[in-house]
């Protein structure tokens, strides 16, 4: 029988191990999240990321090797975004009836997300090129990366800040709205889609289908609005 190290080094070089471990980590994280009654801090993305990061660290695996396997999951983000048309379609009458509140909430949430982040970080002495990567943090990653680059920020840093924002929003949204007594799933969903893009939308879908649909519309529209607003606000503020 060959020794474990030899088998491992053979398997770890191919995509199967890392694809499988991504699913294993997520299934474990999702089970933990379900076992805590979907407690906000037991966020399934956060737990799975920590488990996998530890695994990579312990096994000394570089991220590009991991991504060879994980790319198959990553690729599905595109088709899943198209599939967000399903909850929008199912709730279309409701969304149409709420068109004005949706647009108003979108505009307000989007402006506050950009202005407050730049204002706080700027006041704390964060440099301009980092602010350029921070400005589009609430929008979906491909849009944020494009915006950050056009403003002179680092695309990698923009992606990091986008993902941190998504996790922070997804962890924060339920306790925040429960604490201040906002019970309208439309308002809760829209706000988290605008403030925390796809990760917030994924959280909203776990919590309530109406929140999920309104989060989807918030995320989609904020991709467009942030692309228009972020350069404008950065120009005015910095």
């Amino acid at each position, binding site marked *: 029988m060959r020794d474990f190290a030899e088998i491992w080094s053979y398997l770890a070089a191919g995509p199967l191990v890392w694809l499988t471990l991504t699913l294993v980590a*997520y299934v474990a994280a999702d089970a933990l999240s379900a076992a805590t009654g979907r407690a906000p801090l037991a966020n399934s993305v956060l737990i799975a990321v920590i488990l996998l990061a530890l695994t990579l660290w312990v096994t000394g695996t570089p991220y590009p090797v991991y991504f060879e396997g994980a790319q198959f999951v990553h690729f599905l983000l595109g088709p899943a975004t198209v599939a967000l048309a399903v909850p929008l379609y199912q709730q279309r009458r409701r969304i149409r009836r709420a068109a004005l509140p949706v647009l108003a909430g979108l505009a307000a*949430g989007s402006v506050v997300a950009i202005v*407050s982040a730049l204002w706080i970080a700027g006041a704390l002495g964060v440099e301009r090129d980092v602010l350029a990567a921070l400005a589009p943090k609430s929008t979906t990653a491909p849009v944020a990366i494009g915006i950050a680059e056009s403003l002179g920020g680092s695309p990698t840093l923009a992606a990091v800040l986008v993902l941190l924002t998504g996790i922070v929003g997804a962890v924060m949204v339920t306790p925040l709205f429960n604490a201040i007594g906002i019970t*309208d799933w439309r*308002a809760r969903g829209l706000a988290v889609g605008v*403030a925390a893009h796809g990760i917030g939308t994924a959280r909203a879908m776990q919590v309530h289908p109406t929140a999920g649909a309104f989060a989807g519309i918030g995320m989609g529209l904020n991709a467009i609005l942030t692309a228009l607003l972020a350069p404008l606000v950065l120009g005015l503020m910095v």
Partner: protein
Amino acid sequence: MLQALTLILLCQLAGEAVARATGLPVPGPVLGMGLMLGLMALSDRVAGMVVPVGKVILRHLALLFVPAGVGVVGHLDRLGAQAGWLLLAIVISTLLALLVGALVFLVVAHLTGSDERAGCEEGDGNA
């Protein structure tokens, strides 16, 4: 199942092509989402085909963010000495955006008479 998946990929592909051709600052999949919504609204057959498959894909939307999230861990050092300040800015800014977005929604919903009682699910044609 296969037809619905094909249609989803075709919408994404069309979205990517349009985004690239027009230079719109909107990602291809978001345009694809709009296109799919239009197709579903036009044809009940398309809607009936795509709804169950879309639901399956979206049930574990959170899983799809995991590979990118793992990538972030390796880049946390990029935040450098400013990491704490950036995280603080993100936490406060996200809190404010959530609050203001939801409150403005509720105020405008009230003003325009599109209130809904909490938890009240209307007949929405989503049978």
